[in-house]
């Protein structure tokens, strides 16, 4: 009697969906077990996570992760594991900061529309370029030196952090921040979020709905960008020659070579496209929410760049499913963070310093789902048989 792994005769129908669902459940399960191990009652944990799905705070993360999800989707289609979205975003931040805080700095509360828009556009374009270049650097190293892109993009992330640290401590240091190691706030005219007021009615349902509406209104500009990126990605992958090349690169690079395409250029181009979208996301995030970056740099992006990996995978690399996947990931991760501020969790830690616990919970949730997904993937094409 033993268990044998056999290839399925036909791939499991809706296999991707099954795997995604199972991974989510497994991940949440593992997370809950861990919480229980440190003495936290599982019921409030699960409740918190589930209720986060209708929590307006999810909207912001959702939009960012969708954008980044597309950035990574393009790279992943080409089997290029762009783990460097963090670094690409950071380089984009630095460029945007340079433009808004150094070149075009102002203390005015408002400027003529054409100047505001001009600066914002310039900043966005520069951010896209910065992201594309930093991504392209990884692409060049992979394509021309043949080094595995995962350690390369990771090391480039660290290098980007350190460069940022140097600049924030040095020339980018804020003039109006006393003693803190961070940049100034972005000047008001360059902010991209729309300040929205809303009143709480006291009714939970109405408040949730108005909460969502308020969030969407605040980040309206981001939404526009999201739609544009969605259309672009769809067109790129399904209609263009470049998209076909990327797909073949991901499926069988040897074939791409024998066809006579320059595989290296394709790799670099793919990385640049991926980094470009990451840079765009960074610009939007900075202009619309972050407003400034502080030292040390790693915490500014809340690891969006890494979370996007999960978004891309859970979407099964399907252009239409990225937003759904992003929503789910945002909800679950935000949920894990809310868990860390539950009273029962605070009790489990006798002292008040909770920064570390929050991070741990987020990592455990993220890591478990990712791990579950990468293992359960086999169900799509293989099955277990008992042989006697």
């Amino acid at each position: 009697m033993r268990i044998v792994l056999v290839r399925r005769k036909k791939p499991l129908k809706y296999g991707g969906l099954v795997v995604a669902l199972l991974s989510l459940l497994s991940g949440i399960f593992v997370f809950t077990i861990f919480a229980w191990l440190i003495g936290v009652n599982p019921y409030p944990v699960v409740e918190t996570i589930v209720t986060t799905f209708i929590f307006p705070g999810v909207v912001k993360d959702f939009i960012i992760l969708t954008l980044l999800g597309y950035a990574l989707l393009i790279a992943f289609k080409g089997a290029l594991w762009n783990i460097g979205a963090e670094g690409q975003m950071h380089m984009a931040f630095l460029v945007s900061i340079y433009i808004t805080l150094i070149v075009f700095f102002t203390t005015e509360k408002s400027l003529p529309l054409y100047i505001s828009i001009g600066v914002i556009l310039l900043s966005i374009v520069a951010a896209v370029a910065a992201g594309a270049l930093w991504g392209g650097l990884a692409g060049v190293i992979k394509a021309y030196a043949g080094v595995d892109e995962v350690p390369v993009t990771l090391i480039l992330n660290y290098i980007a952090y350190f460069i940022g640290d140097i600049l924030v401590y040095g020339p980018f240091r804020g003039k109006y921040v006393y003693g803190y190691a961070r940049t100034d706030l972005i000047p008001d005219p360059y902010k991209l979020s729309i300040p929205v007021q809303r009143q709480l009615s006291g009714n939970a349902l109405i408040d949730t709905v108005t909460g969502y509406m308020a969030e969407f209104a605040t980040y309206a500009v981001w939404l526009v960008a999201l739609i544009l990126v969605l259309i672009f990605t769809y067109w790129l992958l399904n209609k263009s020659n470049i998209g076909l090349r990327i797909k073949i690169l991901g499926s069988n690079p040897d074939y791409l070579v024998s066809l006579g395409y320059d595989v290296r250029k394709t790799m670099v181009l793919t990385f640049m496209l991926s980094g470009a979208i990451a840079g765009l996301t960074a610009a939007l995030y900075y202009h619309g929410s972050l407003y400034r970056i502080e030292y040390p740099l790693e915490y500014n992006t809340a690891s969006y760049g890494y979370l996007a990996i999960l978004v891309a995978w859970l979407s099964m690399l399907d252009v239409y499913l990225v937003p759904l996947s992003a929503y789910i990931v945002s909800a679950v991760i935000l949920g894990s963070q809310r868990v860390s501020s539950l009273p029962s969790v605070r009790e489990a830690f006798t002292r008040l310093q909770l920064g570390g616990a929050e991070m741990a919970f987020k990592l455990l949730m993220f890591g478990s789902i990712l791990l579950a997904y990468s293992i359960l993937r086999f169900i799509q094409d293989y099955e277990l048989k008992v042989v006697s």
Partner: protein
Amino acid sequence: MIPQLDYIIDKILPAFVTFYLVSLGHSIFEKSGILNLAIDGVFFTGTGAALLGAILPIIYNIPISPPVMGVLVATLIAAILGLFMSSVLTFLPISHGAVGLSLQFFSYGVGIMLGYYVRLAYGTIYGVSFAREDVLYLSIISLVIGVVLHLFIERTKIGAAIRAVGENPHSAAALGVRVMAIRIVAGMLGFALIGFGGALFILSWQRSWDVKLFTLGYGWLAFATALAAGRHPIVLIPVSLLFGGLVNSQTDIQSRLGIPADVAKLIPFLAALALMLIYSTTRLRRIFASPSSLGKPYYKEEKSI
């Protein structure tokens, strides 16, 4: 004479031992053909586990020296991770990179929970760390492990089996090798050494622990060095010395060359990147080639034309 000796004992050796053990363990692990992208996570979990192990003798009155217990616990937990990763990736034809990366993030979380819990409950760990002079013994032990491992891999049958599985698990199986068993042996041994290195990082080098340690990225430096050195236990000795020195002398480099602290932090990473580039673009790539099947999903019944 004395101040230089102090310098070596305090600065160079602890860093060397950590880097050497981590890259050694990683090398053994990957020799069996499994890509190890979880290296930084396992390293970090090792630090947390070491912390846990170090206070156990005090809480439960066990007659084992605390730092030694720390090492044992870290090695054990790391070996379990190694068992998990190597067996799952050999039984199922799934992406090594995906599992490794996921495990890395997951291990970060586990490491924080282990260390944080202990740190909060117990306080400073200086008292349960290795004494300053112990690093001499630890260095000798590491070097001996390295030499023994080298002979083990190059001269014995089981070493040949590990290399065979790394080159082509299908052929190895056809030749009669128990692929799963070999992968588990290499996996557990490899991660155990990484855990050992992580434990020494905390208990011999830093003698303190902080949540933010998981952002250091030292595991990736070890990854790069192992790659460039061809996963060769002897070549890794000078390379680990170099990186240990680079990382640990950041403050010295900073004050001597008058550059800001963060630039000094950049140097080891730039060096790692440079090392990988040099390796890939020169003859080194052929001499120190990676195992041919590194990272390839393994499916026993793969049908070919």
